C-alpha cells in the first residue's frame, strides 16, 4: 500500500536513471550492430525522444508537483510581501494585534464564564431559592423541611443539599497551639453537599447522614489550602483531632485543590440542625443546590421545582406566602453572576477590535493591490492567466495571514499572562485562563479568511480594468475606480464606527470610575481599619455557642480597651462592614414609616446594620442631623434608629421632619416602632457603584456585631497589631481575619470597574490607531494616484489648502458617516450595559461629543500629514517623469 501511495505521489522518482538505462540499452544495441559511438548515441537519442521534456510531462501529472507549484507561489509571495513591506508589514502587525487581543480576552471569558467551576458536569447543578412576586425581587430563603420535599418529591434530582444563604458568620478559629490562632471561613452543609457538586475528598471520607444527627461527634472536611497552609499538608490528617473555636473536631477529609465553594470556604462541617429547625417551615435561612439526572433540561427541572413550591404554599398556608414561586438558577450563572456583564463587554470589545483590525488590514491590502494595477494589466496583456494572477495574490494574502496568526499567537500568550496578573482580585477562576486553542483557531481563521477574501476580491476587481487604458497611462497610477473608492470609503466608515464605540464605552467607564472614587462614597476616612472578629461559636449552628450577652460584653470591653490605647481616636463595631462584597443573598429589609404607611402600600427596602456608638465618626460618614447612638441606647431604653439622608428625604417629602419620626421593620410586631434620632450622609454601603438606603440600629437593641472599625494616628499595620494585642489580652483563643482599611475595601470594590476602564481605553486607543492608519493609507493612495494632476494644478497656481481639501473631502465624509453610525450603536450598547455605569447616562453628550471630535481630529491629522508632505515636496517632479 505504501509503495503504491509512493508511486501515486512521487511519480517522477528515479525517472532520469531509468531513462539513462534505456538510452544505454539502445546505444549498445547499435554498437553491437557495428555503429560508431557518436552514431549509436544519435540513434538512441532519436528513439528515446527529449528526456527532459518527458520528465517534465511525468512531473506535471504528479500531485507532488502541484504542491511544489503551491510552494513556488508561497516563495514568490514571501518575496513580494518582503518587497511590499510598506503595505504588508502594517497589515500583518494590525492583524496580529487584533487576533492576539481578542483571543486573550476570549480565553479569560472561557475560563471565567464557560468553565468557571472546578466541578464535573457543572451545567447539571442548579441553585434553588424562592421569590415572592408581590414583594418584587425579595428573595425568600428555604427552611430545612423543604430539603426533604425536594429530595422525595422530585425524581429528576440525583441529589440535593442545603447550605445557608448568608455566607458570613460561620468562620471558625483554628488553634494549633504552636502558632497564632487563625480565623478560617467555613460553611455548614447538609451531608450530600459534595455529592451534588460531584467532588470527593482526596483524603479521608465524605459526610454521611450520621454526621448530621444532633449529638453526633463534631467532624469537618478541610480545603486543600487550609490543609497545606495551616496543617503542614499532613498526609495522615484524616481521623485526627484539631481544635476549632475551642472545640475538638475530627478531620474526616481533605478536598481537592480549587474546591473552595462557596466564597472561598476553607472548611465545611455538617449542618447539625436541631429539632426546632428540622420541624419548622418558618425557620428559613437556607438555599438548596441540586444535581439533576442526566438529560434533564433546565426548563424541566425549573418547572418541576416551581410546581412543588406552589404546592407547598397551598399545603402550608401558615408558613408560606400564597404566591411564592421557585427560582432555579444554574450554579454556573450564580457563581459568576457579577463578573458576567463585564466579561461580555470586554469580549465584545475584543471582537470589535478584531473586526477593526481586519478592516484596517483589508484596507491596506486593497491599496496595495490597486497600486499594482499597471503590473496586473501588463501581465494580463502578456498572456498570464487570470487564475494564476489570482493565485499569486491569494498566496500573498495567505502569507500575510499566516504571519499574522503566528504573531497573534505570541501576542495572545503574553497578553493572557499579563492580564491575569494584573486583573483585580475576586474574579473567580481567572487564574485558570490559558491560551485557548479553540478560540485562537476561530480568531485566526476569521482573520485569515477575511484577509484572503479581501485580497482576492481586490485582485479580482483590479483585473476588471480596461487593459488598454491602464497600459496607456504607463508608469503613472490610475486613480481608483468608482467601485474601489466606494469600498474604501465603506471600510473607513465601518472602522470609524468601531472606534467610536470602543472609545465612547471606555469614556463611559472612565467617568463611572471617577464618579465612583470621587463622589462621596460616604466613607471619608480611608485610613480607618476594619477587621472581622466573628467570635468563635457565633452563629446559629456553632458547636459551642457564645450567648448574645457574652458577645456584647466582649465587644464592649474590647472597644473600651482600644479606645483607651494612646493614639487611637475612635473605635466601633458593626454587623457587616461597608463594601464587604457578596455575603450570600443580598437581603434588603422591608420597612415602613409612619408618614408613608397609608400612601405607599408597597414596603420600601433598605440595608439594615447594627452598630455601636462612634461608628460614624470612625468611618467618616457625616451625621447631618440629630445625634449618634450613645451609651444610653440599651435594651431597656426606647428603640431608636439612624437613617441615611436619602431615606430622610422621602420622609420630608411626606411632610414630616425625619428626626423624631418613627419607622418599623417588616419583621417587627405592630407596635414595635423605632424612633429616628439621627440622619447620616447617604453612603454606598454595599457596593461603590450603588447608593444604598441605610437603617442603622444600636447593636444593644438588635443583633450582634461581627466587624471592628478603628482609627488612630498609627499606620494600619500598627493598628492591626494593637487590635491583635488587645484581643489576646482579653481572650488568647480569638483570632481576627479580613484586615483591610476602608480605602482598601473601596479600591477592591472598584477594581473591576478600573480594570474594565483601562482595558477599554486600551482597546479604544488601538482602534483609534487602526482608524488613523486607514485614513492615512486612503489619503496616501489618493495622492499617489493623482500626483500628476496635483502637480499640474500646482504649477497652474492652485492654492495648496484647496488641493489638500479636495483630497480629503471624501475620506473625511466617510469618517463623519462612520461617526453617525457609531454614536447610536454606542448609545444602544451603553443602555444595555447601563447597570455597569455609575452616574453616567448612555446619551452623555460630553462623552459622545468628545469622542466624535477626537476621532475626527485624529482622522484629520492622519490625512493632513501625507497631504501636506506631498504638497510641500517636490511638486514638479511628476511632471518631469511624465
Amino acid at each position: 500500500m505504501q509503495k503504491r501511495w509512493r508511486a501515486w505521489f512521487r511519480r517522477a522518482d528515479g525517472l532520469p536513471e531509468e531513462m539513462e538505462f534505456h538510452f544505454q540499452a539502445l546505444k549498445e544495441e547499435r554498437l553491437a550492430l557495428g555503429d560508431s559511438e557518436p552514431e549509436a548515441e544519435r540513434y538512441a537519442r532519436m528513439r528515446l525522444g527529449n528526456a527532459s521534456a518527458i520528465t517534465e510531462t511525468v512531473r506535471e501529472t504528479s500531485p507532488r508537483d502541484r504542491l511544489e507549484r503551491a510552494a513556488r507561489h508561497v516563495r514568490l509571495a514571501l518575496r513580494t510581501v518582503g518587497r511590499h513591506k510598506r503595505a504588508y508589514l502594517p497589515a500583518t502587525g494590525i492583524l496580529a494585534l487584533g487576533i492576539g487581543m481578542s483571543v486573550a480576552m476570549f480565553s479569560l471569558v472561557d475560563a471565567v464564564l464557560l468553565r468557571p467551576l472546578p466541578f464535573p458536569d457543572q451545567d447539571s447543578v442548579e441553585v434553588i431559592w424562592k421569590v415572592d412576586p408581590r414583594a418584587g425581587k425579595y428573595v425568600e430563603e428555604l427552611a430545612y423541611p423543604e430539603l426533604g420535599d425536594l429530595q422525595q418529591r422530585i425524581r429528576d434530582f440525583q441529589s440535593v443539599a442545603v447550605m445557608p444563604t448568608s455566607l458570613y458568620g460561620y468562620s471558625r478559629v483554628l488553634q494549633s497551639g504552636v502558632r497564632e490562632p487563625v480565623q478560617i471561613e467555613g460553611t455548614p452543609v447538609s451531608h450530600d453537599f459534595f455529592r451534588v457538586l460531584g467532588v470527593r475528598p482526596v483524603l479521608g471520607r465524605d459526610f454521611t447522614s450520621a454526621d448530621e444527627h444532633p449529638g453526633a461527634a463534631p467532624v469537618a472536611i478541610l480545603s486543600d489550602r487550609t490543609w497545606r497552609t495551616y496543617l503542614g499538608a499532613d498526609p495522615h490528617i484524616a481521623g485526627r483531632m484539631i481544635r476549632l473555636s475551642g472545640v475538638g473536631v475530627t478531620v474526616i477529609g481533605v478536598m481537592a485543590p480549587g474546591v473552595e465553594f462557596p466564597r472561598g470556604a476553607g472548611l465545611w462541617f455538617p449542618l447539625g440542625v436541631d429539632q426546632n429547625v428540622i420541624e419548622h417551615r418558618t425557620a428559613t435561612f437556607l438555599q438548596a443546590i441540586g444535581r439533576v439526572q442526566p438529560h434533564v433540561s433546565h426548563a424541566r427541572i425549573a418547572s418541576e421545582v416551581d410546581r412543588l413550591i406552589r404546592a407547598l404554599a397551598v399545603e402550608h398556608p401558615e408558613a408560606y406566602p400564597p404566591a411564592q414561586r421557585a427560582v432555579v438558577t444554574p450554579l454556573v450563572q450564580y457563581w459568576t453572576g457579577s463578573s458576567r456583564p463585564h466579561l461580555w463587554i470586554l469580549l465584545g470589545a475584543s471582537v470589535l477590535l478584531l473586526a477593526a483590525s481586519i478592516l484596517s488590514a483589508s484596507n491596506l491590502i486593497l491599496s496595495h493591490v490597486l497600486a499594482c494595477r499597471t503590473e496586473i494589466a501588463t501581465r494580463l496583456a502578456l498572456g498570464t492567466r487570470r487564475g494564476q494572477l489570482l493565485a499569486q495574490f491569494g498566496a500573498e494574502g495567505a502569507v500575510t495571514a499566516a504571519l499574522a496568526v503566528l504573531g497573534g499567537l505570541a501576542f495572545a500568550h503574553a497578553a493572557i499572562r499579563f492580564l491575569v496578573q494584573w486583573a483585580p482580585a475576586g474574579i473567580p477562576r481567572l487564574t485558570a485562563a490559558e491560551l485557548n486553542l479553540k478560540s485562537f483557531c476561530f480568531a485566526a481563521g476569521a482573520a485569515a479568511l477575511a484577509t484572503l477574501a479581501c485580497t482576492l476580491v481586490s485582485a479580482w476587481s483590479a483585473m476588471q480594468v480596461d487593459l488598454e487604458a491602464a497600459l496607456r497611462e504607463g508608469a503613472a497610477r490610475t486613480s481608483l475606480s468608482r467601485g474601489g473608492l466606494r469600498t474604501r470609503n465603506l471600510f473607513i466608515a465601518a472602522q470609524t464606527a468601531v472606534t467610536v464605540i470602543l472609545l465612547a464605552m471606555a469614556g463611559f467607564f472612565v467617568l463611572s470610575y471617577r464618579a465612583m472614587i470621587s463622589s462621596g462614597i460616604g466613607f471619608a476616612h480611608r485610613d480607618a481599619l476594619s477587621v472581622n472578629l466573628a467570635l468563635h461559636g457565633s452563629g446559629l449552628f456553632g458547636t459551642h455557642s457564645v450567648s448574645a450577652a457574652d458577645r456584647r460584653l466582649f465587644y464592649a470591653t474590647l472597644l473600651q480597651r482600644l479606645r483607651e490605647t494612646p493614639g487611637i481616636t475612635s473605635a466601633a463595631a458593626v454587623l457587616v462592614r461597608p463594601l464587604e462584597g457578596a455575603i450570600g443573598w443580598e437581603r434588603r429589609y422591608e420597612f415602613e414609616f409612619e408618614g408613608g404607611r397609608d400612601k405607599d402600600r408597597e414596603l420600601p427596602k433598605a440595608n439594615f446594620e447594627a452598630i455601636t456608638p462612634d461608628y460614624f465618626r470612625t468611618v467618616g460618614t457625616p451625621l447631618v442631623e440629630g445625634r449618634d447612638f450613645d451609651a444610653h441606647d440599651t435594651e431597656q431604653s426606647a428603640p431608636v434608629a439612624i437613617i441615611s439622608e436619602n431615606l430622610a428625604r422621602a420622609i420630608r417629602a411626606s411632610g414630616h421632619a425625619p428626626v423624631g419620626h418613627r419607622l418599623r421593620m417588616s419583621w417587627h410586631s405592630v407596635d414595635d416602632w423605632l424612633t429616628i434620632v439621627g440622619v447620616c450622609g447617604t453612603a454606598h454601603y454595599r457596593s461603590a457603584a450603588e447608593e444604598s438606603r441605610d437603617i442603622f440600629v444600636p447593636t444593644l437593641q438588635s443583633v450582634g456585631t461581627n466587624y471592628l472599625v478603628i482609627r488612630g494616628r498609627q499606620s494600619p499595620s500598627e493598628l492591626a497589631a494593637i487590635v491583635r494585642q488587645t484581643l489576646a489580652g482579653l481572650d488568647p483563643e480569638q483570632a481576627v481575619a479580613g484586615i483591610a482599611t476602608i480605602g482598601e475595601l473601596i479600591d477592591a470594590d472598584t477594581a473591576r470597574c478600573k480594570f474594565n476602564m483601562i482595558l477599554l481605553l486600551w482597546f479604544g486607543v488601538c482602534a483609534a490607531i487602526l482608524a488613523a492608519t486607514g485614513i492615512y493609507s486612503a489619503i496616501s493612495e489618493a495622492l499617489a494616484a493623482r500626483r500628476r494632476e496635483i502637480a499640474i494644478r500646482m504649477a497652474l497656481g492652485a492654492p495648496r489648502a484647496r488641493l489638500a481639501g479636495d483630497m480629503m473631502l471624501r475620506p473625511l465624509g466617510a469618517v463623519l458617516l462612520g461617526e453617525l453610525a457609531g454614536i447610536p450603536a454606542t448609545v444602544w450598547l451603553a443602555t444595555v450595559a447601563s447597570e455597569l455605569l455609575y452616574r453616567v447616562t448612555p446619551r452623555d453628550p460630553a462623552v459622545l461629543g468628545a469622542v466624535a471630535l477626537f476621532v475626527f481630529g485624529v482622522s484629520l491629522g492622519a490625512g493632513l500629514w501625507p497631504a501636506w508632505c506631498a504638497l510641500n515636496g517636490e511638486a514638479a517632479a511628476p511632471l518631469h517623469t511624465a
Partner: protein
Amino acid sequence: MTDEARQVDILQGTLSMMILRVLGPGPANGYEIARAIERRSDELLQIEHGSLYPALRRLEARGFIEAEWRVSKTNRQARYYKLTEAGRQQAVVEHSRWCSLAEAITRVMRPA
C-alpha cells in the same frame, strides 16, 4: 485542449493497453517493453521510446503495475515492471474494449 494533445491521449490509451499486454508473460523494463511492442507489431509500430514512461508511471500510480529496481541481463540497474492482479483484469477489459472498437471501425470501413 489542442488537437495534438488529443492525439497523444488516444495514443496513450492504446499504449497503456499494449504495455499491459506485453507485461502479461512476465516482468520487463522500459527498453524491453518498447522493443517487445515493436517486435510484436512486426516493426510496424515505431513508437518514441520516451513516450512509454509517462504511460508507465500513470499505470503504476493507478496500481495496475508494480516496479522494482533489479539487475538487468546487461548487468546494470534497471527498473522492472510487472502486472498486479488489478492490472491483469484491466488488460482483459481493455483488450475486449479494443476488439469491439476495432470490429466496429472495420465494419464502418468495409466497402459498401
